[in-house]
């Protein structure tokens, strides 16, 4: 740049080149942009470092066991034998059973709040249900130990055994000794914990269904229930699936409440009354006192698996919910 143009620079900000950059820098906008950008990038950095650390610190067991880690069921820290199958089994069984209980309940409640209840009752109830989601998981665990476990021991467990225990096919699920703690108890506590997520997301999604959809169905002579079940719910089904994925991710990663009621016994049993173990629970119980590098590595690998699964589920959930709120039922509106 020649000196001749420098007087003009002062009057009119230059449009390009390094001097333009300095000019904007002086006014602070670029600096502010850069600073906030760095903080936004911190989030990406933390997430990447998290995956990296879990990957690197699980190298001993990854090298030693490979994929057999997921399919063998001997967990012996002293002999340095690590098979994660019982934990994966316990995590999947409790989470899926929790969904079996929570999805119908949550969906029904969401339908009531979105379709039937007057707006102010619906809003108040949704507010109370959000509070349910805010209760710390250790408190659910506390109630699990001192309320749900005794109830399982006395009326609920024996009742299920006497009724469902004799039904063909599913009967074996309800046989065997009932200790109160176990897979079924953990699933019930989990179900209570994830219901609020299903309700609040499904309600939001149901409320975005256009009014014309309901009116058209009712105008054709459908009952209120038929309009809801055959028109409104199918319209919102992708978003509802999203809420289920979100709830599943919560259930898989839930630690304290499950640890307190699942029985913490690494076995694979056919009975739902049997004690079990989950991925998060074994990390919570053993990590602080891990006996050696291999033990710690095995627990880190479990953490990595848990993180990747919830990562994928949450990603899918977001996409489904966004898709519904924009389009509706995946069909062009």
């Amino acid at each position: 740049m020649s000196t001749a143009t420098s007087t003009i620079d002062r009057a009119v900000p230059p449009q390009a080149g390094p001097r333009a950059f300095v000019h904007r820098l002086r006014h602070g906008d670029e600096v502010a942009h850069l600073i906030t950008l760095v903080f936004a990038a911190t989030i990406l950095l933390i997430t990447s470092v998290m995956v990296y650390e879990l990957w690197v610190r699980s190298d001993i067991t990854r090298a030693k066991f490979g994929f057999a880690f997921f399919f063998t069921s001997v967990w012996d820290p002293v002999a340095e034998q690590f098979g994660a199958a019982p934990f994966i089994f316990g995590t999947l069984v409790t989470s899926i059973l929790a969904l079996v209980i929570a999805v119908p309940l949550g969906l029904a409640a969401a339908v009531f709040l979105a379709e039937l209840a007057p707006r102010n009752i619906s809003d108040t109830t949704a507010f109370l249900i959000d509070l349910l989601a805010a209760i710390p998981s250790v408190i659910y665990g506390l109630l699990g130990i001192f309320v749900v476990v005794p109830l399982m021991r006395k009326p609920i467990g024996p009742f299920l055994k006497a009724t469902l225990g004799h039904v063909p096919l599913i009967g074996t699920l309800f046989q065997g000794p009932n200790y109160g703690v176990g897979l079924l108890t953990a699933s019930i506590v989990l179900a209570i914990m994830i219901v609020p997520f299903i309700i609040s997301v499904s309600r939001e999604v149901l409320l975005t269904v256009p009014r014309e959809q309901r009116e058209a169905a009712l105008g054709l002579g459908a009952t209120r229930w038929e309009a809801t079940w055959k028109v409104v719910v199918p319209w919102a089904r992708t978003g509802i699936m999203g809420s289920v994925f979100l709830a599943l991710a919560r259930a898989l990663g839930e630690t304290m409440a499950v640890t307190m009621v699942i029985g913490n016994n690494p076995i694979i049993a056919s009975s739902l009354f049997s004690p079990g173990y989950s991925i998060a629970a074994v990390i919570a119980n053993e990590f602080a006192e891990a006996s050696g590098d291999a033990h710690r590595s095995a627990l880190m690998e479990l953490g990595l698996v848990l993180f990747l699964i919830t990562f994928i589920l949450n990603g899918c959930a977001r996409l489904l919910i966004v898709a519904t709120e924009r389009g509706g039922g995946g069909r062009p509106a």
Partner: protein
Amino acid sequence: MSDLRLAWRKSLNGVMLTLTGVAAFSVVAVLFLVLGYLIWNGGTSLNLDFFTQLPKGEGETGGGMANAIVGSLKLLALAAVIGLPVGLLAGVYLAEFGGKTFSFLTRYTTDLLNGAPSIVIGLFAFSVAVLPLKHFSVLAGGVALGVMVIPITVRSTEEFLRAVPNSLREGAMALGANKWKTIATVIVPAASGGIITGMLLALARVAGETAPLLFTAFGNQYWNTSWSQPISSLPVMIYTYALAPYDDWHRQAWAGGLVLLALVLIANVGCRLVLNRRGANRSA
């Protein structure tokens, strides 16, 4: 025939609609059961010692959780120092500066970090804060909770900044303020109520977290005077005491549960009421 079918459809309608109502109210009933149980069991267990005494040894009666209450406050303070600035500035970036691709990526990662299991966040804090220092510490616990605070703060900050009307931005710029001055002196102050409430909600959420503290802050029977030593916290104490085989420890676990629940719910109800009222004012 068609009469029969109509009657069937009508009764199905009645039954199913009733069931949805039953479902909704049974879920709300669970909330009141939880509250009732804690108030009953916790209320009868709570005494002054709980707030002023150190824990007694294994199986002894009496004592309290004074050190755990202070410990939780210290951990929360550290989490706030670590998490809130990052959350605030990243939120400002997303709402005011963000380009398209990078913003999308950041938002997506934020949501995924928000959904990450808390026990995994604990493993992360263990790797970056316990292993280098070679022992459990307040610092490591603070890092774990701080990381959990970030995504919640980012999303609420962004949301409230976006709710500020564009006319304010245009007005400030028309008066000659450049972008960062507009943001710092007009936009953020206009959204400050919402942003601060969002931050409080984030802290209320991590206040009840137990899993990430088990092998970062660990626990401590005594008063902690240093940031680099293990510290006890209310949630971890509740967990340990609930699983112990002593009746008096169970009593204290209930008391701790009531105190924790009261703190978390009061923060939640307060924040949400403030937000709702602001929302109502804005639309009115």
